[in-house]
């Protein structure tokens, strides 16, 4: 207790913290979220509800663990053959009549998409949910070039109207209350003021977005799985927005990270069984659409994006993060995510998986994310592709320390902790002093800004004797008894 009190007082010492990062640190952004206590609890409960649904449906399949094993093994194999599988996919996609583009960076990706749109003189585009295009910041880029992009997933459209990023990869508007959506729709769609009834609001959105579907010249989608064996790909939605978006216009642009590949069509029999159940506790998403080639008389473009993925592939510690199928289960279960909200991560993909992917991209900027974790391991337990998430988060902490990216406060804390915990004499003495001194100190000396741990918590009463002292006296006592 004394040791942790020392550590805590050091951690929060403001003058020792180096703030050279471009984005803010997670504890600061999280503090803003939890400042609204009832809302933080509401958010926590909303996600826990989804997590509980996932548990219930996973339990209905006796082979659940077997499915996870197979999925992980398929992804591991895929990563070990990624280059040839990408080539196979490209070959087959071209044979089916698709155009395949390759982009190393978000800038290249955006230029490719813009080029296709210009070729078709398109000014109105509908887009179904795609975390890749979020990662590339495609929307603002296209808007700057005079193209109107409408996100057609309802949650994604809501955050687009609010001019903010999604806070969750599967449920982008999970942080927003229906009262706020009612107000937003009143402003943008002219719905009744004060209306909060979800079916009423959804109907209003349906009406407006149908106009967008009908008026769009090009449809953009993400990709859930790309099949090397056939050259096709699968897009999963519940709303049917991806299908409407690319079945009315003649031109379909599908944007995907290079890790979305699977070797065989039948591998989907593993992944589709896991995805919907893990994501929202559904037996399968409503629509699992398999696209092979363009619409008759239409055009299909597939953009393959690297953006650091090939780099992650080279890292033995972190390459398994490329297995991710973006179900969001790790977020729904994460005690930190649930209580700090997706925006506190300031990344496209938040939560446990995001806290691994973001530092891979820039360890300096995102150095606080691997610490937004209690190492409870729940994320690894629910991950359908068995990513060792909490182990990777721990490894990132080490990596951040090795690269000297830790703030001074943490470095000092760890330094002193190492000294105290490394010396039995120092540890025992510090404990003795603490047990004697702490109860005598005035409250203001114990609970102040140097003890962030004590902000929401009370220290337990100091025990009169340490565990070691108690153990020693017990052993003596029982020795006596046996004689």
């Amino acid at each position, binding site marked *: 207790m004394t040791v942790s009190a020392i550590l805590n007082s050091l951690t929060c010492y403001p003058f020792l913290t180096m703030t050279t990062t471009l984005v803010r640190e997670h504890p600061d952004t999280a503090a803003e979220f939890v400042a609204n206590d009832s809302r933080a609890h509401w958010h926590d409960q909303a996600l826990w509800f989804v997590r509980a649904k996932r548990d219930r449906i996973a339990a209905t399949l006796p082979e659940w663990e077997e499915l996870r*094993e197979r999925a992980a093994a398929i992804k591991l194999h895929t990563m070990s053959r990624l280059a040839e599988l990408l080539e196979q996919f490209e070959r087959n996609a071209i044979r089916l009549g698709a155009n395949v583009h390759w982009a190393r960076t978000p800038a290249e990706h955006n230029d490719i998409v813009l080029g296709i749109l210009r070729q078709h003189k398109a000014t109105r585009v509908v887009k179904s949910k795609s975390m890749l295009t979020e990662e590339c910041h495609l929307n603002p880029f296209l808007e700057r070039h005079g193209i109107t992009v409408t996100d057609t997933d309802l949650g994604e459209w809501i955050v687009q109207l609010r001019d903010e990023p999604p806070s969750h990869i599967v449920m982008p508007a999970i942080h927003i209350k229906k009262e706020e959506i009612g107000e937003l729709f009143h402003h943008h769609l002219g719905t009744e003021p004060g209306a909060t009834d979800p079916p009423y609001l959804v*109907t209003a959105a349906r009406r407006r977005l149908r106009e967008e579907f009908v008026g769009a010249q090009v449809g953009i989608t993400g990709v859930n799985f790309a099949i090397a064996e056939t050259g096709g790909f699968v897009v999963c939605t519940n709303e049917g927005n991806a299908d409407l978006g690319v079945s009315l216009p003649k031109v379909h642009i599908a944007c995907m990270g290079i890790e979305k590949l699977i070797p065989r069509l039948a591998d989907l029999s593993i992944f589709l069984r896991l995805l919907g159940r893990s994501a929202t506790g559904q037996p399968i998403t409503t629509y699992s659409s398999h696209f*092979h080639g363009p619409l008759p008389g239409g055009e299909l473009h597939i953009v393959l994006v690297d953006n650091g993925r090939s780099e992650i592939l080279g890292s033995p510690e972190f390459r398994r993060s490329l297995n991710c199928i973006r179900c969001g289960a790790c977020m729904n279960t994460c005690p930190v995510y649930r209580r700090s909200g997706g925006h506190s991560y300031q990344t496209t993909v938040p939560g446990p998986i995001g806290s691994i992917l973001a530092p891979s991209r820039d360890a300096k900027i995102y150095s606080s994310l691997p610490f937004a974790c209690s190492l409870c391991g729940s994320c690894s337990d629910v991950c359908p592709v068995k990513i060792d998430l909490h182990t990777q988060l721990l490894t990132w902490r080490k990596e951040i320390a090795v690269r000297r990216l830790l703030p001074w406060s943490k470095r000092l804390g760890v330094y002193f902790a190492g000294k105290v915990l490394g010396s039995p004499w120092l540890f025992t003495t510090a404990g003795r002093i603490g047990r004697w001194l702490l109860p005598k100190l005035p409250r203001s000396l114990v609970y102040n800004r140097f003890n962030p741990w004590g902000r929401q918590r009370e220290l337990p009463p100091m025990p009169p004797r340490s565990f070691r002292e108690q153990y020693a006296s017990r052993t003596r006592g029982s020795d006596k008894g046996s004689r």
Partner: protein
Amino acid sequence: MTSRAEILDAVRRHLPQSSPLPDLTGPWITYPDPAAQFAAVLEMIGGRCVRVANEAELPAQLAQLPEFQSSQRTLSLVPGVASHVDLEAVADPHDLEDIDFAILRGEFAVAENAAVWVTDAGVRHRVVYFLCQHLALVVPADRIVNNLAEGYRRIGFGGPGFGAFIAGPSKTADIEQSLVIGAHGPKSLTVFLVEG
């Protein structure tokens, strides 16, 4: 060097040690009565399953559905069920916007998740599956598989084409996790399992 070459080169440089590709046979779940399981799951996800003795019963069964009764324009690709629209004669899929009710065929159904496999074979505009206000899929009752593993044994893509699993009506829970049926696609889904 092109981006393609650079990406493939970077991937090749970083390839991990090879690891075997698992086979896909397994202890996958089966059901004593797959049709009953299919119907139960479909109900749970907001759809409706109707079992009929033969296709001749379809018009009478449809006439009992409230969504069908209120429909102005219907489209059917099932012989014996009247259609207001000849899909083959429609050049522009945008002209299908006012279809209220579509009756189409599903190739097979999956008991574990109530998904029905549909394709664009013989369907000039695939958008009809998604654009109609209400959808009915007609599936032979002897084409229900237990699980997706069995399902994928029936699927192949030799050439260009479109196929989808459709499980229930279009839905969203994006407003405070309240489930709302009828997001962008069909507001109802009825699956007719035909015995004969």
